[in-house]
């Protein structure tokens, strides 16, 4: 017994160390878990073909663009998350929007750059563009997914643990707290029930938004204070957009605020300083090891 315990400890330590060294695989694993739980409990996907099309498009595009433009092979976990996010967040009866949205998302990383960094969270760019067009073929994940309270709690707990590990918990908390406060204020303005204003936060669209989009290390600013301010600003712009009845307000808000914040941050600090000044081991690791947790 004692031998067993003694024998397990090094194994546990080794497992923890392995997790630390391979943290870049945790977010893809988490988003896959969300997808699998959603699919096998509720059947959230209308078609596996659409999801596979989005993932494959994103990963192939990333591989080709990284090789031809940057001259390097890149870890494809970021592209995988982009593809899976597009596959979940976009709804269409045909395949092409999944392919186009994934392709636009990845292309945005390589085309819309400033001081060597991309400005938009990839899937936020692609999804926002497609939803903004309000076409006959594309809708968003706004009124889908089940309403199981336990599953929602489990996803929130796991998500919070992961953003904590990614050192972006403050971003999530700043946004969520701001959202709740502003939802209360919005309820006072519109006369709608506070729970109605809070309702979207309990849905799956926000779970992806909170844990994968606004916390993306690649498209968040370099200082903790700055990131908190940006998260609050995203919530505020969303608040305004919601008053104007934009269904996809969170995406559009991040689409507007995120790149402006990045632009200012890069202008003030520069790319090198952006990494050095971050004072954030995770952000430093981003540039060195290619840690990819973006959606």
């Amino acid at each position, binding site marked *: 017994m004692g031998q067993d315990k003694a024998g397990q400890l090094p194994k546990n330590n080794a497992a923890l160390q392995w997790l630390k060294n391979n943290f870049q695989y945790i977010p893809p694993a988490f988003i896959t878990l969300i997808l699998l739980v959603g699919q096998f409990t509720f059947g959230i996907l*209308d078609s596996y073909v659409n999801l596979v099309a989005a993932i494959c498009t994103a990963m192939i595009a990333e591989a080709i663009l990284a090789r031809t433009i940057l001259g390097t092979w890149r870890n494809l976990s970021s592209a995988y998350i982009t593809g899976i996010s597009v596959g979940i967040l976009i709804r269409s009866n045909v395949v092409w929007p999944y392919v186009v949205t994934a392709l636009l998302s990845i292309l945005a990383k390589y085309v819309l750059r400033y001081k060597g960094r991309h400005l938009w969270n990839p899937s936020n760019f692609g999804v926002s563009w497609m939803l903004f067009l309000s076409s006959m073929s594309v809708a968003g994940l706004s009124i889908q997914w*089940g309403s199981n309270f336990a599953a929602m709690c489990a996803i929130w707990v796991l998500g919070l643990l992961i953003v904590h590990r990614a050192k972006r918990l403050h971003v999530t908390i700043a946004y969520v707290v701001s959202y709740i406060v502003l939802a209360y204020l919005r309820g006072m303005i519109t006369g709608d029930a506070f729970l109605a204003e809070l309702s979207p936060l309990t*849905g799956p669209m926000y779970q992806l938004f909170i844990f994968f989009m606004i916390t993306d290390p690649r498209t968040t600013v370099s200082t903790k204070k700055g990131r908190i301010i940006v998260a609050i600003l995203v919530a505020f712009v969303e608040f305004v957009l919601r008053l104007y009845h934009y269904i996809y307000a969170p995406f559009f808000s991040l689409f507007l605020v995120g790149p402006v914040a990045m632009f200012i941050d890069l202008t003030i600090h520069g790319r090198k300083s952006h990494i050095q000044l971050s004072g954030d081991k995770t952000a430093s690791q981003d540039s060195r090891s290619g840690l990819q947790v973006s959606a």
Partner: protein
Amino acid sequence: MRRKAAQIVAVIIFVGLLAMTYISSQNKPRTFGGDLAAPQKQTALKKYGVFLEPVNEAANITFVHTSPEVDPKLNHIKMQIASMGASVSICDFDNDGWNDIYFTNSGPGSKNALYRNLHNGKFEDVAPEMGLADVNIKGTGASMGAVWGDFDNDGFKDLLLYKWGKPELYKNIGGKKFMQITAGSGLPQWVNSNCAIWFDFNNDGLLDIFIGGYYSETLHLDSLTTTKMMPESFRYANNGGRNYLLENMGNGRFRDITLQAGLTSTKWTLAAAAADFNGDGYPELYLANDYNVDEFYINEGGKKFEEQGGPAGIGHIPKSGMNASFGDINNSGNPGIYTTNITEKGILIQGNNYWDPKAKDAGENPSFVNLAGISGIENAGWSYGAQFGDLNNDGFMDLYVANGFISAKKNTSYWYDYSKVTSGNSSIIGDARNWPDMEGKSQSGYEQDKIWLNDSDGLFEDVSGLICPPATYDGRAVAMADLWNRGVLDVIVANQNSQPLVYKNESDGTYHWIGFDLIGTISNADAVGARIEVKWDGKKQAQIVTDGIGFSSQNQHRLHFGLGESRHVDSVIIYWPSGRVDRIANPQIDKLHIVKETKRGN
């Protein structure tokens, strides 16, 4: 240098994709809105061979639907809750050989209307004298629909009225009057129902009843004790009303065998349709459900039902099922099932389904593939009722889909508020108190009904607003019937909180047709479940006799086949529910054939 070139290519592709997606979003197909210029009748006749002329006034049809009353606790979303109840069912109730029309009303104290066909182009409302008008008395519930069926096989069709309330059964006394026989009939005390059909599930020659539940039967929507009555989820709700399968015992009594038969679902059922899909002689049951997947019940020898929606391919994607109707769109001899859902551009693209049965050996359970997309009949709007019928008699079944949810204040939309609350947890969406005030806003309102003409073999052309004047009522139930015995299908649309539309089919008359009215002798007298297969000119089309089909609607009892230019029918085969098979050799065309089931040994 190569990297620079790659960068330039990436920029070109990126900009190209942005431009392409932008341009494609601007090139919208025909909109759902009614912004079309009035079509020219002669142009429509020349191009499509059909024009639908609204003739309410000329036909003396003055009925106007009023919405049901709801508890004041629901006033803030009253328009959404009280958004159903306009129904239409066709029946020759007095057996004079001319189709009559029954419309339901829903407001407290409002009157239903039974329009008797006067054979001269006009109708007369005889509901008061027949005892079928004053049926929305406060406390008894609001009419949601009605289906005609000869449950006692006396040759006259009786009436089942379903409500958000107490369902009622009326016996037809020789086409002269109706007698309410609900008491002691075994009908449930209260059902919040939006669909019911007559069908003989056990082939005993007596029509049984299926009633689908929408809101829970524990609720009285005009006097609620709780506001926790909304669906628990937009896609996975199981807190709707229970269903009822009522077996006809043959003495004016019905026995509730729902649970024994395995129909235990409490999804939010809005439409039901029954037909034999596996060739064993017993009708399967298709249920279109709101807020969840549709269900497909295999009939196991008339003893019980087993839900096989998943294996059949129809039970995977939850939508907003609101209609179930049959149509053989590709003249394969195997009618498929058309179900309607919601399409609102940029917000919710569910699309309607056409479930085409895959060829299987007799006795095998069927499976289906959705052909709505490639057939061009997928996106209609916020759709309710739909019916197939050959509107121009060219030999291919066309499709009429009623559209539009709530037409209130123009240029307003409740969609934002709706999506806000429906994206949330069940504890939020399930309580009406949490739903934002509609404040008179429209939601998918002012939509033009869709009319699709079948070009040939299952490919459809959108002629909405081209073969009839633009109309943007909130369409609910659709029925097709030859109202004036002219050999064409007229269209009747019941609109919520408004007048119905009675369209007279102004066909150019160049094509031929053949019709059949079946009378069962061993089978139930209405021959519900019988299937007619007509072969002509290398084509084969099958249709099924139903007593209730679509959304809150019932077509004429007779079956109508367009024949195009063909002057000859090769064969007609009638498969009766009893198992009898009758063949008609060289039937005369351009004629309605009244066919009695031959008895054994004949």
